[in-house]
């Protein structure tokens, strides 16, 4: 299957290895992966901050770059959820609205693409360690993604999935929220991480780099040895 990668701006700039891992995983699943460098950002940072015109500028660029693709895969639930807001974002612009409506259903978050579209959970990955999953809010509550990453992790050789009672709790990132109300944002994260260390996990994993930056930033400050990993990094591990 021909797949176009929408790598997302955060992965592009801060965690390119997640992008490479996503490509690797998709190829292992039998996809022919392409990347169009015309893409930039889904527009979410501006959209969530209330700057709709700025969000539209970014979204237009990315839509234009990707709309010819058959299927578009994103290593992010949050940005995928944003693609579902595109039609509403262009509510007053019939032409762009139509383009947004056409492209939105073609955009898939990585785990749901692998499991629900390709029907593929076994990727021959190996990852020795105990991992706790963080259900990132937008993937969970806007896209209904819950079982897909778990189904994928279950097939990873050597990986033990430790369910944590706070897996669905928000990490407190929230885009500009994290710097507008930094103390609050960190307090929310600390509440989430409570009790995690005592479960003896080696890593906390998620499918959103934004949450991972928040989590790893705090863990590093606290001097924790816990790692914050993207799902793709785990699935691309130990190529067979």
């Amino acid at each position, binding site marked *: 299957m021909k797949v176009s990668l929408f*790598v997302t*701006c955060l*992965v*592009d*700039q*801060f*965690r*390119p*290895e997640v*992008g*490479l891992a996503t*490509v690797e995983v998709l190829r292992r699943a039998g996809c022919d992966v392409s*990347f169009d*460098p*015309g893409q*930039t*950002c889904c527009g979410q*940072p*501006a*959209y*969530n*901050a*209330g*700057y*709709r*015109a*700025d*969000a539209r*500028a*970014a979204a*237009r*660029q990315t839509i234009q770059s990707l709309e010819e693709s058959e299927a578009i895969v994103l290593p992010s639930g949050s940005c995928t959820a944003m693609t579902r807001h595109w039609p509403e974002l262009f509510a007053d612009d019939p032409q762009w609205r139509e383009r947004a409506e056409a492209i939105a259903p073609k955009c898939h978050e990585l785990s749901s693409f692998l499991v629900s579209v390709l029907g593929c959970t076994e990727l021959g990955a190996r990852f020795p360690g105990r991992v706790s999953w963080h259900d990132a*809010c*937008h993937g969970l*509550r*806007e896209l209904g993604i819950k079982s897909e990453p778990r189904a994928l992790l279950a097939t990873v050789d050597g990986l033990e999935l430790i369910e944590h009672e706070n897996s669905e*709790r*928000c990490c*407190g990132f*929230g*885009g*500009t*929220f*994290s*710097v*507008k*109300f*930094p*103390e*609050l944002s*960190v*307090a*929310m994260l600390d*509440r989430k991480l409570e009790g995690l260390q005592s479960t003896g996990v080696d890593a906390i994993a998620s499918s959103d780099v934004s949450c991972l*930056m928040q989590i*790893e*930033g*705090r863990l*590093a*400050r606290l001097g924790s040895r816990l790692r914050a990993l993207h799902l793709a990094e785990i699935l691309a591990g130990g190529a067979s």
Partner: protein
Amino acid sequence: MSHPAQDHSANLESFPENARRALNDSQLRGALRHATGVIDERRGQAVERVACWQELRERAKTLKAATLERLDHWLELFERNAIARGTQVHWARDAAEANAIVARLAADAGARTLVKSKSMTTEEIGLNQHLEELGHRVVETDLGEYIIQLAGETPSHIIVPAIHKTRAEIGELFHRTLGVKDSKDPKELTAIARERLREEFARADMGISGANFAIAETGSFLVLENEGNARLCTSLPRVHVALIGIEKVIPRLADLEVFLRLLPRSGTGQHLTSYQTLFSGPRAAGREGPEELHVILLDNGRSAMLSDSLSRQALACIRCGACLNVCPVYGQIGGHAYASVYPGPIGSVITPMLQGVEQAHHLPFASSLCGACRDVCPVGIDLPALLLKLRSKVRQGSAGSGDREQRRAFRLWSLAMSGPRRYGLLLRALRLARPLLERPGARSRLARWVPPLAAWTAAREFRPPAGRSFRELWRDQEAKDS
């Protein structure tokens, strides 16, 4: 920490400061965490037992939307039927009018002591303060409200007004204000309150209540409660006045079938509240009850919310409080930090709608948009979508001008995001900043000029941009492969 009853709107500006203060109050956070956790767990269990929960929510949402569509019609029908049953109906455009009506009724009744059952709508208009200024004694009779009144505070939750207080704090408060011995035992504390309140019920000349639903086809209204105090408030005094927001009207008595299954479960995790009282007119000859029954229908900004399909959605709220209990922001800071009558997700939505976005411009941003509120709302209000709409409204107005730097930053950002060449320039700029971001000393110097970086790094490490972006790595790979 004390939270004197105050003119709320004056403090809406101080949300960031209030939040910070709340975060440093470990007693407050402990009480909140315990109470919101318990209530939400009970809610979850109660909801689980209703197989058709989602279907009920859909029905409630549709019903509310249809009712709000023709609210004027249902209100007129309610008025007509209420009058036919001997109820006197008053209309209040705003808080001042509503307060004046209650004050006039109190004066006509020669009322000295007024007893009240729990009502957020009376909080909204600042009724107690108004009546006290006129020399009336106003006594709250719901246990939580009684505690808040003794403490001289405002409710910090729409269902559990004293949720921020520990048992020990309440014992100390009773000791200090009522002169009883200090106790932590909830049974003892309740007994003390009950004894005091009994005297008040006996001497009250007028009872004031709110309502959960007003029923158009019968002209009656329903009050839900657990303590029996609302029944006493509305049956012992000679006059009963009910203050009802115009959005509370529903067409038919049969519609309660849906709402009575949704509201108690969502609010407290109960299948049904201990008491549900339907008021349909003053006492009939030879029966007990108040001689006069007055209903005040309050607008206070609500009809303006009807004009827009999004804000109209917020009028569907049945004030169950579930969105507060599940909100990770509310759970950390509690209701007082919002400095609005209605706190939490629904408060952040309706406060700007009722009082203006200029005044309440912080509140729509007091959320990580996690969506937990939308999941639990029994009437399916899309609270995050409403917060987003309000955010863009704030940006269009002048209230956001304090964030001029941010506005400029996003303008630049959107320029960089609207073309691959410009995006490439941004990547290069980020690369140049990398050495500064990597070295702790240089980074903290940089943070002095870049407030968001300072905000981030106060309690978190910052990951600098990668040495090579994905698109560069991809290009390298392509070059190698070909």
